[in-house]
């Protein structure tokens, strides 16, 4: 076969711009499926176990609450404990109040891997050998992780609600949905920060440690800020101040939207940073 090349155009295949983004997103979601199952099962089974444990303490809730009164009120508030006889409050204090500290590591690890991790493993050159704009690598990975995180939340929600139905605990599907959906923005914002660090630095360890440090720092700032007047003024800069307890009070869509906007701003910044920097392998 003889093909005459004309300024490199003949024989050149090109996908539509949104086609490459869609291919990247769907491929990344597929690659994350195993992690979704592991994270969803681990957190979901823990949550289901807590639902089951509620049936054991339900009868002695009055005594437990009495016992809790011995603790400083501020401390109980800090950990979201108000009435252990209420399944929603029990689940918030035992599961959903602390869950972001664990679940945020799914987007942090995945998005730290997206750029800095791929540079360290040397896989980014092969991917970027394709006609893929750099902003699509940033946005595509973010969308894929955001979808996978939503899938994890759905698994956790299903296992929690399933356990509630099985053990006859008074938790409605709406309450459980609000609780798991509320996890999504607070976790994805730390993932977006990891993506920015991944785009800024060439080291995966930095892209993990910086958001992890801020995650625990903000949690402590908010928790201590509830009991300490000295730290109270600092609470607004902690994302945990806007997390609340959706399982008890319903979803605060303003906070949901605001945290999501912060995450999107970090993604935009990551795309701008990554657009101009060298790629090392």
């Amino acid at each position: 076969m003889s093909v005459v090349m004309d300024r490199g155009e003949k024989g050149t295949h090109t996908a539509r711009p949104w086609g490459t983004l869609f291919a990247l997103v769907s491929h990344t979601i597929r690659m994350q499926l195993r992690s979704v199952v592991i994270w969803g099962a681990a957190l979901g089974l823990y949550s289901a176990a807590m639902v089951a444990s509620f049936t054991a303490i339900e009868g002695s809730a009055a005594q437990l609450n009495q016992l809790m009164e011995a603790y400083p009120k501020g401390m109980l508030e800090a950990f979201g404990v108000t009435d252990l006889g209420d399944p929603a409050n029990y689940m918030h204090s035992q599961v959903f109040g602390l869950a972001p500290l664990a679940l945020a590591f799914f987007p942090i690890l995945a998005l730290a891997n997206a750029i800095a991790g791929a540079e360290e493993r040397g896989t980014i050159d092969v991917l970027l050998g394709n006609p893929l704009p750099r902003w699509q690598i940033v946005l595509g990975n973010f969308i894929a992780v955001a979808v996978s995180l939503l899938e994890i939340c759905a698994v956790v929600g299903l296992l929690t609600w399933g356990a509630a139905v099985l053990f006859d605990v008074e938790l409605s599907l709406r309450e459980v949905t609000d609780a798991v959906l509320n996890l999504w923005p607070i976790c994805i914002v730390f993932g977006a920060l990891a993506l920015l660090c991944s785009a800024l630095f060439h080291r995966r360890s930095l892209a993990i440690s910086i958001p992890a440090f801020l995650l625990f720092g903000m949690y402590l700032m908010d928790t201590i800020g509830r009991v300490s007047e000295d730290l109270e003024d600092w609470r607004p800069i902690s994302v945990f101040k806007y997390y609340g307890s959706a399982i008890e009070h319903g979803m605060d869509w303003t906070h949901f939207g605001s945290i999501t906007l912060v995450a999107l701003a970090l993604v935009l910044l990551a795309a701008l940073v990554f657009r101009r920097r060298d790629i090392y392998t």
Partner: protein
Amino acid sequence: MSLAIETEKLTKAYGRKARGIEDVDLAVEEGEIFGFLGPNGAGKTTTVRTLLGFLRPTSGRGEVFGLDIRKSSVEIRARVGNLPGEFALEDKMTGEGLLKYFARLRGVGDLGYAHEISERLGAELHRPMRRLSRGNKQKIGLVQAMFHRPPLLMFDEPTSGLDPLVQEEFLDIIEEMKAEGRTVFFSSHNLAEVERVCDRVGIIRGGRLAAVETTATLVDKSFRHVVLTFAEDVDKEPFEALPGVKNLRGDGKRISFTLYDDLDEMVKLAAGHRLVNMEYERPSLEEVFLTYYERENGEER
């Protein structure tokens, strides 16, 4: 003829610690196979990665098919099949999965050619990367660079880890690509294969382009290995005194040396004796290449 790759004073500096490339002027014509030679750290990979937009040039300019490397990186990569020197893939992926994924990224609907070259190279497409040997991973790397039939192919050490039979098959594929009018930019340590397939070679040393010649010219312009066998013992000193003669060794009837100059005077001197045999060998590209580096190290011959 149009140029597939053109650079003018292309420079990439990494800072004080590492050397990049400096003032590289390169012109690779469309349809040629261009060999890019140099030892590790000379700047081969930096040149390729700068052309593909992975690294931003510090100064100078570069074009691939007339497209600016700073502004049109995506359009350039649509026209290039690239095999990086350190080819690495996600462990979980299979070769087939990778090809399907890349076909979607490139808008390629038919994987027929991918399967054809996979079969010719003996690439195992259905095993995860973590279970493949280095050579088998390299085959997948070659297939992913070629399957979309790009007008320009950039290979960094393409036959590294391949067995001799597969190397031979790969070189056949390269020659077919040349026949189709495709351009190949070929960086390799295996100078025998460069000599076999490349029309021209560029030698890079210390980040600078030291020479660009046709492969034949580069070899012809260099030295020759000469072995003279005489019927009787001869004095080796007059041969040693000839201009351009180095490394002379002799044991009476047999004299061997390397000749860097015109052979006329040597032939006239040898003709004064009864000559039984004369071996006159051109060096391999590898030897020519090494002389460039000996010069760099101050060992001028």
